[in-house]
């Protein structure tokens, strides 16, 4: 381009430069359109990502509902558990401050240093827990000196606590970490892995009432996860408190009476089915499930031959022994095999189906009517009745009185026991029923298996003259009374059928019968004793001939008062010996305490 540029023609390079700029201009335009895409079209996506980036939700644990007894005594409580953490980024001079901290927390400086060493991979602002499981009174002196120790952080969370330790442990149950299956199967309950949930007893049964709704603390954090500010706080909803029908004092007495003997005790109100006490011995301390067992402790607990975790009252299976005579008597009367006046002669032994069977009283009771047969627990009377009846009516009556099926008590794991029948034997053992077995069943031996609670419920039916109840613990939840479970089944026998049996039970306790150990002055206790052979009959007879003592399970079932009964007590003491001598007095103590309490209330 001449003229314009006086020195030289630069048109070629200028043209190339302009071309390059045009390319750059296009690139800028494309860049701008990409920014449009990201900022306008994909805005929502990135906005959400930015929000998720900076918001952290921390769980505020909801306290579990309390478990109270009928008099508002706290059986399961929550206590604050504190943990003290060290924020290392606030530690100015470790050498100077570590001895002070270890002194304050009561740990050695070595322990402190090893904890810090263990977590040295964590970012410095992340607190390192140096002591946890501290109680409120232990934290107070630390809290008081917080200002001197900016490097310490104290956090509290509610944990379950059973203030009476082993008291009513089997009723309350225990907590364990929720399993992944439980969480998966209950999506609506928003359970979290690592949380403790009810594993047994009432804690399990009413877990959904007791479990609260965890709250959340929404925090704004920076890129290092450090908390910058609290955004919102969603307060936790505590679980609902529940009231149990247990009477803590009666429960304590029951446990005390069982002592270190293995066994079970059930006390319930026959008019409602409310369980006043349920003890199983040996007990366990549910607090240990919270503070975690050491592995050896756990192995010991699980392998303990006395199985302390088992609730013998609902899971222990025993032959009912002579208690079963009540079933026999009721069935015999109802079906007309006997009348109250029917009399049988007891000579001390009886040959039935070619086998000689002994009464527990070798000298013989002489002529026995029904009432006396019950009072003296005469075997011969019931051998005779059993031979007359055959197995089928016995099985039916036992079932009607609640044996061989679950009572419906509101704690999990109940066993149903076994009432044998010809049909059952053919099905499971593939052998026909031998009439001789009926004779064993007639005195509550053989394959009969019952739980102490089943016998308590059966006793309640007798006390109620046939009216059935469902044993239960729950009286109220969340401040409202709970409805008692209702029963629709009609009484199996006529009211009057019960009276002569009850007369026998009354005399057993109050007229020098086998149950006289349970006698309480001023209270009409009616009861039946039982002593169950744990070894086979042949072996028992062999031992008897050798003059060796045969330890039997010791039973007592009774109720009081005779009219308008208000309390049923069932006692089982494993290898206790004679029911009258061992279980009877234990039941008597419970009746006595109960009546004193009733009297003092009025």
């Amino acid at each position, binding site marked *: 381009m001449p003229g314009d540029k006086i020195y030289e023609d630069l048109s070629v390079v200028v043209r190339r*430069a302009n071309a390059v*700029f045009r390319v750059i201009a296009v690139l800028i335009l494309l860049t701008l359109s990409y920014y449009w895409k990201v900022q306008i079209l994909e805005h929502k996506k990135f906005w959400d990502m930015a929000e998720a980036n900076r918001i952290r939700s921390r769980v505020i644990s909801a306290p579990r509902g309390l478990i109270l007894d009928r008099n508002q005594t706290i059986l399961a409580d929550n206590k604050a558990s504190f943990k003290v953490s060290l924020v290392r980024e606030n530690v100015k001079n470790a050498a100077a401050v570590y001895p002070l901290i270890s002194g304050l927390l009561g740990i050695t400086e070595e322990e402190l240093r090893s904890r810090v060493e263990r977590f040295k991979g964590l970012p410095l602002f992340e607190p390192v827990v140096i002591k946890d499981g501290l109680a409120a009174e232990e934290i107070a002196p630390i809290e008081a000196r917080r200002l001197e120790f900016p490097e310490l952080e104290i956090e509290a969370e509610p944990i379950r606590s059973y203030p009476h330790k082993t008291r009513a442990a089997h009723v309350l149950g225990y907590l364990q970490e929720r399993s992944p299956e439980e969480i998966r199967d209950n999506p609506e309950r928003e359970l979290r892995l690592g949380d403790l949930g009810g594993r047994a007893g009432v804690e399990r049964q009413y877990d959904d009432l007791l479990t609260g709704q965890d709250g959340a603390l929404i925090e704004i954090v920076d890129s290092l996860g450090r908390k910058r500010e609290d955004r919102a706080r969603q307060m936790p909803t505590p679980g609902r408190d529940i009231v149990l029908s247990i009477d803590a004092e009666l429960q304590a007495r029951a446990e005390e009476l069982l002592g270190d003997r293995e066994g079970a005790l059930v006390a319930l109100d026959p008019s409602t089915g409310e369980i006043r006490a349920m003890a199983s011995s040996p007990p366990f301390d549910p607090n240990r499930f919270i503070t975690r067992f050491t592995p050896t402790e756990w192995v010991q607990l699980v392998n303990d031959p006395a199985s302390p975790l088992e609730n013998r009252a609902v899971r222990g299976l025993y032959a009912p022994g002579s208690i079963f005579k009540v079933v026999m008597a009721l069935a015999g009367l109802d079906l007309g095999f006997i009348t109250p006046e029917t009399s049988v002669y007891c000579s001390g032994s009886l040959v039935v189906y070619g086998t000689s069977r002994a009464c527990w009283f070798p000298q013989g009771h002489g002529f026995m009517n029904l009432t006396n047969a019950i009072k003296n627990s005469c075997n011969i009377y019931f051998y005779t009745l059993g031979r007359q009846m055959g197995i089928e009516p016995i099985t039916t009556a036992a079932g009607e009185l609640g044996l061989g099926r679950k009572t419906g008590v509101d704690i999990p794991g109940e066993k149903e026991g076994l009432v044998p029948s010809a049909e059952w034997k053919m099905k499971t053992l593939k052998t026909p029923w031998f009439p001789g077995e009926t004779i064993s069943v007639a005195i509550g031996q053989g394959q009969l298996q019952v739980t102490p609670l089943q016998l308590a419920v059966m006793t309640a039916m007798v006390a109620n003259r046939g009216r059935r109840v469902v044993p239960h613990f729950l009286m109220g939840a969340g401040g409202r009374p709970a409805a008692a479970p209702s029963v629709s089944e009609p009484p199996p026998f006529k009211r009057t059928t019960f009276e002569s049996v009850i007369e026998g039970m009354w005399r057993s306790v109050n007229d020098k019968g086998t149950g006289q150990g349970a006698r309480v002055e001023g209270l009409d206790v009616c009861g039946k004793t039982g002593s169950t052979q744990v070894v086979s009959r042949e072996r028992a007879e062999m031992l008897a001939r050798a003059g060796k003592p045969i330890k039997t399970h010791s039973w007592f079932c009774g109720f009081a008062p005779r009219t308008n009964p208000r309390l049923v007590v069932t006692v089982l003491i494993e290898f206790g010996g004679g029911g009258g001598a061992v279980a009877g007095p234990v039941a008597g103590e419970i009746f006595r305490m109960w009546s004193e309490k009733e009297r003092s209330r009025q």
Partner: protein
Amino acid sequence: MMVDRRLFQEIDWVLIGLVLALTLLGVFFIYSSSHFLPKNYAVRQLIWVGISLVALFVVVSFDYKFLVSFSVYFYALIVAVLAGSLFFAKLVVGTKSWLRFGLVQLQPSELAKVVMILVFARLFAEYKGRYLNAQITGLALVTAGVPLVLIMLQPDLGTALTFMAIVGGAFLLAGLKRKTIALFLLVSLVVGFGGWQFGLKDYQKKRLTTLLNPREDPRGAGYQITQSKIAIGSGGLTGKGFMKGTQSQLRFLPARHTDFIFSVIGEEFGFLGTFLIILVYFLMLARMFLSVAKARDRAGVYIIFMASMLIAFQFLINVLMIIGLFPVTGIPLPFLSYGGSSLLSNYLALGLILNVKMRRFANV
């Protein structure tokens, strides 16, 4: 040395205004994104702006012809400094690219880019042919290659890339035959492959692979890209407001006040903000590139073109890098990002453009 009144009137005040606007916006955003840090980066940047303006005045004062003729000495000096810094410079952030002069740290590689502009202007101004011949191509490659290798050895990949961009721009302007272009492509393929295999450090390779899949490494190299993209995208149309960007204020964004400052703008002022800033850059670049026509001689054309390329390349790479379209190479946003050496070298480049433009009628 003295600038006379006539020349002063010829200074492109509009261009200076655009650059100053970007520079002051930069200080503003440096404050927004670093006010919570212990060092006061905004004030430091202001000091650097002062230094850069003085340097600009100095560059403008000398006729570019004079600077071009002295470029050989500048070249020798900068190569010596680059080589020396490789051996003696204090190690800073993993690179040997910083030189300390008392309180002031300088990156010699930044100055090398400006020196290269003058050297190439001198080299190509002599050559008036339509296309480059082999002889001068070879000479140019060796001239550019020595400082380039030294910069790459430091290692400062970002500056090396910018360096290559302006050199490549100069070649484009000088004219390349197809055969030469093909040869360049072949050589760069071989060098690229060899570099990947033997030259690139692991973190550099990672940055390249991360570009293809940022989620692969969300806490490492991909983290920066992901967080930057979240910042920009979450800004939406109007942004979250000044100093209200959660990504930048809560430090999710890396290098907020340096390489990623444009992400802060995108987050706090949204697409409107990014659009306006890009528009200002476009106007500035247009004014720079179109000044090429105002140059009175070939050396002037090369100076304006390469200086414009220097700014344009850094701008484009930076805005593409922070949104995940280019690997994280440590190229700052010219005039806006915090950083003294970068600001100084960009102002020197601006000075060169102004210098050429204001002397278009000057008679020597």
